[in-house]
């Protein structure tokens, strides 16, 4: 991987990743009550991108079993719910695919229940659905999961609070700097308006980047519907041109 390079008096040339704080929610988001005691109040200290930051664990195929990408075949029977294919590409913000990188997911079952001892939502567990998967992107950055569409579930953040259906994604990319945990949502969810986690991303365009799109072309007739979700990690630092136009 070569990215934008900086001149180095020491002869040590490292990639430089763009800083993308504008994409992300603020840690201090009062509407999300749990954030109140869990955000730093002191200003963040600038960290240059040195060797430890531009390298990272190259986790890949060795972490994946043969069926880990298919959350519907990991048990004796078929899970209940709507079978869906979730696929897309992992790219960097320079538009380059991120190949051979580990993609991990976890989610609630069709009833909105996680197989987690801390989940007290009294919706039924599904003995045929554990709700975790992993796979590795191919040489072009493509990944694919087969799973069940997760249900919405209630939580106690505010009066009558419900999380929109979502799948959690975890990516390490190729550098410590690229590490990302996000959530994939489904198009047109009527619960978006009242969800402080989704709305913690203030910019509408940025929020839309967390929403998958229904994709008829990759459905499998009489078997599964399909959603596309591309994930973009930090990529090469953008060059700044002096005559850059103001973006209205």
């Amino acid at each position, binding site marked *: 991987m070569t990215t934008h390079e900086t001149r180095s008096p020491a002869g040590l040339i490292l990639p430089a990743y763009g800083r993308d704080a504008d994409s992300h929610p603020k840690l201090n988001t009062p509407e999300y009550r749990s954030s109140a005691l869990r955000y730093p*109040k002191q200003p963040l200290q600038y*960290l240059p991108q040195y060797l430890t930051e531009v*390298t990272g664990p190259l986790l890949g195929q060795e972490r994946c079993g043969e069926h880990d990408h298919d959350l519907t075949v990991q048990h004796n029977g078929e899970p209940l719910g709507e079978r869906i294919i979730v696929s897309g590409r992992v790219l960097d913000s320079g538009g380059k695919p991120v190949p051979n990188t580990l993609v991990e997911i976890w989610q609630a079952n069709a009833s909105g229940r996680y197989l987690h001892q801390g989940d007290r939502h009294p919706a039924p567990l599904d003995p045929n659905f554990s709700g975790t998967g992993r796979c590795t992107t191919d040489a072009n950055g493509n990944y694919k999961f087969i799973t069940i569409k997760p249900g919405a579930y209630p939580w106690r953040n505010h009066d009558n609070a419900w999380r929109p259906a979502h799948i959690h994604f975890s990516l390490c990319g190729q550098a410590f700097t690229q590490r990302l945990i996000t959530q994939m949502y489904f198009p047109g969810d009527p619960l978006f308006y009242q969800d402080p986690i989704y709305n913690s991303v203030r910019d509408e365009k940025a929020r839309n*980047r*967390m929403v998958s799109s229904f994709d008829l072309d990759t459905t499998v007739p009489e078997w599964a519907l399909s959603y596309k979700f591309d994930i973009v990690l930090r990529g090469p630092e953008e060059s700044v041109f002096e005559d850059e136009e103001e973006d209205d």
Partner: protein
Amino acid sequence: MAAPTPPATTPSQTVGPFYAVPGGILWDDGAEVVAADRAGAFVLHGWLADGNGDPIPDGVIEIWQADEQGRFDHPDDPRPESSGWQGFGRCPTDADGGFWFRTVKPGPLPTPEGATEAPHIDVTVLARGMLNRVVTRVYFPDEEQANAADPVLSAVDPARRATLVAAADDRGYRFDIRLQGDDETVFFAL
């Protein structure tokens, strides 16, 4: 025709309370960066606390570091590589907010400016209630000279530097992380 606009990054969201589903993102050996019989291996441990000073029982701590010689096994490191070095650890916090790793002290590293970084470990903190990760660094108390010359540590307010330096103890080193409040750990914008 204009070149296509490069894509903007996907926003971060919280890891939530349920990342620890069986078979999920946590691995049985996640905390073991090195085997127990590796020369120089020690336990790096600590606790994660919130703004009330209460332990955070649903956090995930990840670490990333060079090997004892300051080498990585990575294509973007132009120096000779450390073959097979993983350097990565992941540990959920327990009911008391505690976490631990078995690792070794990394070697010092050169910077592109020609300076030398003191031995350090990069840390990611994730938890319910955190909409994005925070990042910090562990430095070592027995590296006073190297720490004084470290370009990152020496840029930190002297009154707060101690939050980035682990304390030696009978298991190895202790490094507590306070997300907020008195003695809030220094976190970095990366």
